[in-house]
């Protein structure tokens, strides 16, 4: 798909190109809007495929649309758009110049696979002997050292993980190269540096999740049946490690009684003081999905303030409660213990009664905070833009997609926790602002 890769020429035409950093839904939308305005776009993604966090989700609230199914067409549009050049497995390493006349330096890591030859057939994956926990599936299953980032990856080409490839480590094996009919394996590939002349930049590098190991009271490390919300997404996804069956990590038994714990790390003076915005809704959705998979499943959402002010959200929550029997417990969770059968026991204060209580679950799901990516600070420094007190890319309320540096705009969860439609709106907005810098009607 990345045919132009390697033969990239500096843009000579009247309108400057725009650099979009981050190939999640925000970056994808910004790139598509700009490209549809006739502006050339360089879309840089550090992972082997575009798609971002949204590709990892099973379904999305409030419509219960399959996440991949609505994302994939946009990914394909990006790959096919004549005005978009994809640079996957690539990071921006420098930005010089000023608004309307930037020079960006990008560094493409070696895949050890020729993108122009690989057909994504997967024969190499079958033969590769090295197994690695699959980061896309939150380590819930293994992949090979040569892998496709996920089934709908764009580009549909393999990547060799240099940390686990036996050949790259010891010079022996090469099983992938032997079976590759397309002759695409290239162990000699090296990193490639390119410079791009661009008029404006859109930063859409997304977010990370708070690591619940920092909060020992939730027993995430000790109790295998305490998982994070993103792990739950992979578990319940048809393309995930259990083929969409909600099975407990400890014993592979179906989870029938599930507790969703809100604000894990959020609205907490010791960790994130902010609200992560999306957890009330994604937990409601996850509880609905549990009921859809198994009508006997019982779900409990432990929350303090329930925040659902987006379009159709209150109606969704009412349906979750009335049609799917989801139980909402206004509470403060004190800790999660574990019984001898690995069942998580949730200890909480019921805020309706002001009394302590506890419930035993098959599975406890932690709604961990959406936090800035560890790379955001480094990127911000390199781009010479400011971050806010929490480490998100800084913006002002009345210029919401402008960073502190002219010519650089931002969208999506690198500037705070937002849901998908908000990220999409911000992406279009950043496209509008960036397009003004390069002109280009």
């Amino acid at each position, binding site marked *: 798909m990345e045919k132009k890769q390697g033969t990239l020429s500096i843009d000579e035409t009247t309108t400057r190109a725009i650099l979009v950093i981050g190939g999640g839904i925000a970056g994808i*939308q910004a790139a598509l809007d700009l490209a549809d305005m*006739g502006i050339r776009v360089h879309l840089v993604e550090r992972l082997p495929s575009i798609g971002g966090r949204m590709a990892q989700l099973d379904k999305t609230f409030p419509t219960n649309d399959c996440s991949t199914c609505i994302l994939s067409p946009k990914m394909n549009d990006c790959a*096919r758009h004549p005005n978009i050049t994809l640079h996957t497995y690539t990071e921006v390493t420098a930005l010089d110049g000023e608004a309307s006349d930037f020079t960006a330096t990008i560094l493409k890591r070696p895949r050890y696979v020729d993108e122009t030859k690989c057909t994504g057939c997967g024969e190499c994956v079958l033969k590769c002997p090295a197994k690695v926990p699959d980061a896309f599936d939150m380590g819930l299953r293994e992949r090979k050292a040569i892998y496709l980032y996920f089934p709908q990856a764009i580009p*549909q080409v393999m990547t060799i993980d240099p940390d686990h490839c036996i050949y790259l480590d010891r010079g022996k094996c090469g099983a992938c190269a032997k079976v590759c009919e397309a002759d695409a394996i290239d162990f000699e590939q090296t990193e490639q540096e390119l410079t791009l002349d661009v008029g404006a930049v859109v930063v859409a590098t997304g977010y990370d999740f708070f690591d619940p190991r920092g909060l020992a009271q939730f027993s995430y490390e000790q109790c295998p049946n305490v998982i994070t919300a993103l792990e739950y997404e992979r578990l319940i996804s048809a393309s995930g490690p259990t083929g969409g069956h909600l099975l407990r990590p400890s014993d592979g038994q179906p989870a029938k009684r599930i507790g969703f714990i809100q604000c894990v790390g959020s609205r907490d003076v010791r960790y994130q003081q*902010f609200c992560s915005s999306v957890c009330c809704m994604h937990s409601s959705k996850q509880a609905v999905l549990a009921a859809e998979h198994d009508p006997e499943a019982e779900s409990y959402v432990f929350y303090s303030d329930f925040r659902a002010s987006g379009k159709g959200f209150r109606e969704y929550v009412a349906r979750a409660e009335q049609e799917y029997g989801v139980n909402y417990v206004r509470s403060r969770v004190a800790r999660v213990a574990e019984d001898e059968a690995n069942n998580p026991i949730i200890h909480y204060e019921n805020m309706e009664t002001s009394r302590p209580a506890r419930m035993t679950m098959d599975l406890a799901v932690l709604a961990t905070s959406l936090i800035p990516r560890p790379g955001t600070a480094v990127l911000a420094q390199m781009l010479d833009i400011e971050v806010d007190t929490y480490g998100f890319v800084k913006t002002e309320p009345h210029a919401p997609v402008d960073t502190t540096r002219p010519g650089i705009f931002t969208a999506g969860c690198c500037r*705070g*926790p937002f849901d998908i439609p*908000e990220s999409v709106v911000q992406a279009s*907005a950043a496209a509008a602002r960036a397009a003004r810098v390069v002109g280009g*009607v």
Partner: protein
Amino acid sequence: MSDEPRIGVFVCHCGSNIAGHVDVEAVAEYARGLPGVVYVRRNLYTCSDAGLTEIKRAIVEEKLERVVVAACTPRTHEPLFRDACREVELNPYLFEFANIRDQCSWVHMYEPEAATQKAKDIVRMGVAKAHLLQPLEEQQVPVEPAALVIGGGMIGMTAALNLANRGFEVKLVERESELGGQLLYLDKLYPTQDDALPLVQARVAEVQSNPSIEVFTSSVLHELKGFVGNYEAVVKDEEGRQSSFIIGAIIVATGARVFQPVGMYNYDGQRVITQLELEERFKAGEFDASRVVMIQCVGARIPERPYCSRICCTTAIKNALEIKSHRPDAEVYILYRDTETQGTRYEAYYTRAREAGVQFIRYSLRHLPEVSGERVVVYDELLGAKLSIPYDLVVLSTPLVAHLGIKGKRSGSRQGARELSQMLKVPVDEHGFFLEAHVKLRPLDFATDGIYVAGTARWPSHLEETITQAYGAAARAATILSKDEVTSSGVVARVNEDLCRGCGRCVEICEFGAPSLVELLPRVEVARVNPVMCKGCGACASVCPTGAMTAMHFTDEQVTAMVRAALEETLLPL
């Protein structure tokens, strides 16, 4: 073309997506035996470069007249295969997709035998349809690089300026006598506590000095015809004067209004007022109270209006902070149900209010607060006790609701959301807010091409969000306005005028305004379809009583052939 078209079938493994659950070899072998099929090929990925090259080679060298790809889904991949056909001069509508992944391998993962049988059935249906496919033509339509923005508040002005500064002509229509919208009535803005007026005045000045923006105040949209790239709008002012112009795209930014709590909590506009009335007092310097009780969700999150209006918690905090800044010793209570202060800025804002001494008391629908002449009595859910709070002023936080249409003496003086939605032929939801094409991924688009929405006309949103939406809608509109022409699909409805009796049912049912009746002879009307406006949905064909209307690419003959093929092992004589 001969009677029996030469059909090529390409069966895709989709890696293991299909081949992992369906015996693709057996499907390909089966396809070879189907009538008309002269060429069959399997690919690991038919959509790969190699796969597409093979299709193009086969069209040329094997003289294929129809192409059937049995693969993932037309949703993402149909354009790709159509393009491949187009490149070697086969009409792209002579391509047919047999969906054996989404509709087969993915849903029958654990039944490989049944899945293989179903894949054969789907391929047989695709081939049956392919026999009857007809070449269709697409149309190129020039685009007028101008936009109509309806609503001259902060949102409409922001969108108009972005487009105008990029070189597009903008017509900005405001039903009030001046630009500015709701912000003209606000005191402060949250979370900055800046004055609202300077921000909006600056934007009004920018709009008025921009030569590319033509402003129509005291005016409403009176009539709209046309289609993406070429809408014809008529705008009418209070005096009845009309202006008409052609625009390529439209942005709806008509805002919302604040619900009036008539008959609730002893609302009297004196000692029990709304947040907006409180802000008027701040602005007029008439605020005078030291004990203020604010009640949230007045008229919201109740059975008749179940939604949360999103901005009321932050509005209450803004005004509570404002009271505290005037009178630090004032007592301010906010009676709330859930604090809707998402994200970084608003959670910090909530903290700031608590630190400033604003008291938050949680109530629930089970025990509504009661407002008497002197006191507000509320059951504090967290304390588990009733509180009785003396007050000077009660402030009710009421939701944003959609604009209502009011028939004034002067025609069209008040255009509500529903009236506008009818004129634009775009939907509103049950609350009267405009309904976007897709809540998740097309939040600013309508299903009708070239029309976009931003701001509180879509849903209650913070100012920061509505400004974002304004820019976003401008970007969406610019994707149309930047093009010289737009291409319409060949999959449209077509009328057989000999069969049409001009009943107009197609005109009634079409959501996109594509069919219209034209007078063929005196008093003889027939339907005609504007192919640019038609979405090919087939609604008209399904209601047509005479069979005059045909949804091309999904004709009765084609669909019937597929149904027959589905029900029978072998193709019946057609």
